[in-house]
C-alpha cells in the first residue's frame, strides 16, 4: 500500500506557486486586452526575447517542480514522517541524486578522482576506487567506457531530436501564422531538448557533471540552484514593489512635506552601501534565528525561512531606485489634463492615485522588475561569497562558486563544479537580460532608438 506523504508548503514554495498563478492570470488578462496584447506582441517579435523566454520558461518549470515539497511517510505502524523534505524534482532525479559517491569524481567518470586503498584480487593497493553509481554497470570499464558513452549519447540525441521535432511542429502549428519569430523559439527549444536528452540518457549510468567534495551530483545541485535563483530574482523584486510604488506615487502626488519625508527616507537608505546594509540585516536575522530555534521543524524549513527573509531584506533595502523613478514620473503625470480634470470633479486623492496614476506607471514597474531579476541573480553569488547569502545547506550558484574557488586551486584542477555553475548561471542571466531588453523595448519607446540595428538595407 502506498503510504500518503505529508505535503509541505514552504514559504518560498508559496511564492513560486503564487507567481505561477499570477502569471496564468496575467496571461489570461492580456489575451483579452487589445492594447496589452499588442505590446506583448512587440516583446515577442524580437527573436532574442522569444528565444530567451523559452529558456526562462524551462528554468521556471524546474523551479516549480522543485517547489512541490513533501515529507515521505516512514515505513512502520506509527505515522512518522521523514525529517528530510523532498521535492518532486528530487523524486525525478532520485536515480542520480539518490546515490552519493564518497568524494570528487570527474564528469562521466567510472572511478573516483582521488586515489585510495583498493582491493585488487584480494590484495590491497593504491588505486582509483570504482564509483558507487557512475559506470557501476560496466564490467570491464577501460574497454567498454567509450562505447557505452557513445551509445548513450546517441540514444539521448535521438530522443532529444524526437522531442525537438515534436516541439518545433507544435510551435509552428501554434505560432506559425502569427508572424512572430517562432523559428527562433523552436530552435532554442530544439537545442535544449537535444542537450536535455543527452543529459538524461547519460545520467542513467553516470554523473554527467561529476560530483563535488561530499560526493553529491553536480548536475542535481545546478538544477536545484535554478530554483534558488528564481526565488531570489522574483521574490526580492516583488518585495520592493509595495514600498517603492506606494511611497513613490505618494511623494510625487502630494508633494510638500510628504515628498520631503519620503525623499529623506530613500536618500537615507541609498546612502548606506548596499552590501553592508544587507549584511547587517542578515547578521541580525541570524542572531534572531539562533535565539528562536523553535520557529522551524526541519532543516529545510530553516534554510527556506532564511531565504525568504533574505529576499525580504533585499526588498526592504532595495526600493530606493524604483521609488525615485516613480516619484519623478508621478510629478509629471499629476500635471496632465486628465488628472487635473479628475481633481476638478472632486475625485479623492487615493482614487486618483489608484485609478489614474498607478496604471500609467505600471510599465516602469515591469521594466524595473525584469531588469532587477538579472541583477539579483548575480548579486546572490556575491552575497553568498560575503557570507550573508542563502543557507549553506541550500544549493545556490553562489554556494557552488564559493566551493569552486578552493577546488580551482587544487592540483589537478577540479573544474566541473565551477563549469556547471558558470554554464547554468550565464544561460539563465543571459536569457533574463535578453528578455528584459525585449520588455524594455516594447514598453518604453524611448529605449528602442538605441538598439543596434543589425543590417541596414544596402542600397
Amino acid at each position, binding site marked *: 500500500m502506498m503510504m500518503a506523504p505529508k505535503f509541505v508548503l514552504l514559504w518560498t514554495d508559496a511564492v513560486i506557486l503564487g507567481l505561477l498563478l499570477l502569471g496564468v492570470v496575467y496571461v489570461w488578462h492580456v489575451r483579452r486586452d487589445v492594447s496589452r496584447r499588442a505590446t506583448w506582441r512587440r516583446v515577442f517579435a524580437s527573436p532574442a526575447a522569444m528565444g530567451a523566454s523559452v529558456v526562462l520558461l524551462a528554468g521556471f518549470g524546474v523551479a516549480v517542480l522543485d517547489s512541490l515539497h513533501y515529507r515521505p511517510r516512514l515505513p512502520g505502524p506509527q505515522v512518522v514522517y521523514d525529517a528530510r523534505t523532498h521535492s518532486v524534482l528530487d523524486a525525478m532525479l532520485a536515480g542520480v541524486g539518490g546515490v552519493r559517491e564518497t568524494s570528487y569524481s570527474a564528469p562521466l567518470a567510472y572511478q573516483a578522482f582521488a586515489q585510495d586503498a583498493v582491493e585488487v584480487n584480494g590484495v590491497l593497493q593504491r588505486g582509483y576506487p570504482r564509483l558507487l553509481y557512475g559506470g557501476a554497470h560496466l564490467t570491464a570499464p577501460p574497454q567498454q567506457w567509450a562505447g557505452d558513452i557513445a551509445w548513450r549519447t546517441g540514444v539521448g540525441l535521438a530522443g532529444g531530436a524526437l522531442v525537438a521535432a515534436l516541439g518545433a511542429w507544435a510551435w509552428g502549428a501554434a505560432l506559425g501564422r502569427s508572424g512572430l519569430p517562432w523559428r527562433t523559439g523552436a530552435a532554442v527549444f530544439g537545442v535544449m531538448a537535444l542537450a536535455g536528452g543527452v543529459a538524461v540518457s547519460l545520467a542513467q549510468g553516470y554523473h554527467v557533471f561529476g560530483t563535488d567534495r561530499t560526493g553529491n551530483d553536480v548536475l542535481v545541485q545546478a538544477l536545484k540552484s535554478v530554483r534558488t535563483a528564481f526565488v531570489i530574482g522574483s521574490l526580492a523584486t516583488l518585495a520592493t514593489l509595495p514600498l517603492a510604488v506606494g511611497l513613490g506615487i505618494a511623494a510625487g502626488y502630494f508633494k510638500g512635506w510628504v515628498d520631503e519625508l519620503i525623499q*529623506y527616507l530613500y*536618500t*537615507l537608505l*541609498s*546612502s*548606506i*552601501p548596499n*552590501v*553592508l*546594509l544587507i*549584511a*547587517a*540585516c542578515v*547578521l*541580525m536575522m541570524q*542572531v*534572531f534565528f*539562533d*535565539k528562536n530555534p523553535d520557529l522551524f521543524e526541519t532543516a529545510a524549513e530553516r534554510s527556506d525561512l532564511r531565504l525568504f527573509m533574505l529576499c525580504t531584506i533585499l526588498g526592504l533595502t532595495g526600493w530606493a531606485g524604483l521609488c525615485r523613478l516613480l516619484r519623478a514620473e508621478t510629478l509629471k503625470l499629476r500635471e496632465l489634463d486628465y488628472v487635473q480634470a479628475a481633481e476638478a470633479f472632486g475625485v479623492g486623492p487615493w482614487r486618483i492615485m489608484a485609478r489614474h496614476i498607478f496604471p500609467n506607471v505600471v510599465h516602469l514597474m515591469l521594466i524595473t522588475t525584469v531588469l532587477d531579476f*538579472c541583477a539579483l541573480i*548575480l548579486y546572490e*553569488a*556575491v552575497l553568498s*561569497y*560575503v*557570507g*550573508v547569502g542563502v543557507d549553506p545547506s541550500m544549493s545556490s*550558484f*553562489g554556494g557552488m*562558486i564559493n566551493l*569552486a*574557488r578552493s577546488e*580551482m*586551486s587544487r592540483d589537478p*584542477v577540479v573544474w566541473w563544479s*565551477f563549469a556547471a555553475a*558558470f554554464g547554468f*548561471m*550565464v544561460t539563465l*542571466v*543571459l536569457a533574463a*537580460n*535578453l528578455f528584459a*531588453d525585449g520588455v524594455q523595448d516594447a514598453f518604453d519607446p524611448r*529605449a528602442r*532608438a*538605441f*538598439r*543596434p*540595428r*543589425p*543590417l*541596414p538595407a544596402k542600397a
Partner: protein
Amino acid sequence: MIHYILRRLGYGVLILIGVNLLTFFLFFTVNTPDDMARLNIGGKRVTQEQIDKWKAERGYDRPLYLNRAESGVKQVTETVLWERSVSLMLFQFGRSDSARSADIGHEVSKRMVVSLQLAVPLFILQVMASVSFALLLVFFRHTRIDFWGVVLCVLMLSISSLFYIIVGQFFFSRVLRLVPISGYAPGLDAVRFLILPIVLSLLSRLGTEARLYRAMFLEEIGKDYVRTARAKGLSEIRVLFRHVLKNALIPIITSAGSYLPYVFLGSLVFESFFGIPGLGAYVIEAISGQDFAIVRTMVFLGSMLYIASYLLVDIAYSVVDPRVRLQ
C-alpha cells in the same frame, strides 16, 4: 555656490544622523548587547558575569536610549546611543567587538591607503575604457561591429564578477604564472599584485558601462547640433570627440559618480579574493567574524562617502555644464 554647498552639507548631516539611528536600532535593539556578548564570547554556557564584564569593557553596560537613573540632560547623554553616536560623529570609532579588540580608527586609516591604491587607478581606467569602447561602437553604429559589440556587452554583463576573478586567477596566475595569485606588498612592488584585480574588475564592469554610455552617446547623436557640426564639414571623429563626448559628460559623471563611494570603500569582493588588505577585505572579515562595531563604523563611513561623492558630482555638473547653477 558656497551657500548651496553648506545647505547640502547640512542635509548630509541630517542623513548621517538618520543612518546612525537606523544602524543603532538594527544593532542594539533588534538584538541586545547581551546577545552580542554571548555571540562574541562563544561557547555553550556563558555566565551573566562574563556578559556583564564584556559589556563593561566596551561601554555597552549603560541603558540604550534613556538613562532613568540620571536626571536632566544626563538622562539622554549617559546612554549607549548618545555615547556611540557622538563618538562616531567625532571619528572616534573605538575598539572592535572581537577578542583581538583592535582600534578601528587606526585600522581604517591604514587600510584606506591600500584601498585607494587599488581603487583610484581602477576608477580612472574604468571610465576611460568604457567611454572609449562605447565611442567605438557609436562610431561604427548600424554596422556589424556595433551589433556584435552590443552582443559582447550583454554577454559580459551576464557573467558574474566572481567568474572573472576565478578564471582570471586561474589563467594568469596559475597557468601563465605572470602575476602572483594573491597578496600585497607596499611600495612599487604593489603593482605586481594590483594589476590583475584592476584588469579583471575593469572587464567585469565593461559590459554594463559601455552599453550605458553607448545609449547616452546615441541619444546625443540624434540632436540638431550634431547635424550642424556635420553640415559644417567636421569629420565624424571630431564630431564624436569634440561635441558628442562633451555633451554626454553629464550622464557619464552621474553614472561614474554613483560608483565613487565604492572606490573609497574598496571593491569588497576583489580585495578579499586577492588578499589585498584594504577596507573591502576588512568589511568582509568583520561580517564573517560578526564584528558589529566594525560593520557599524563602515556603514557610517560608507554613507558619509556617498553624501560627499554626490556633492562632488553636483559640483562637477556646474563645472562641465555652464547652464547648471547650484543654488
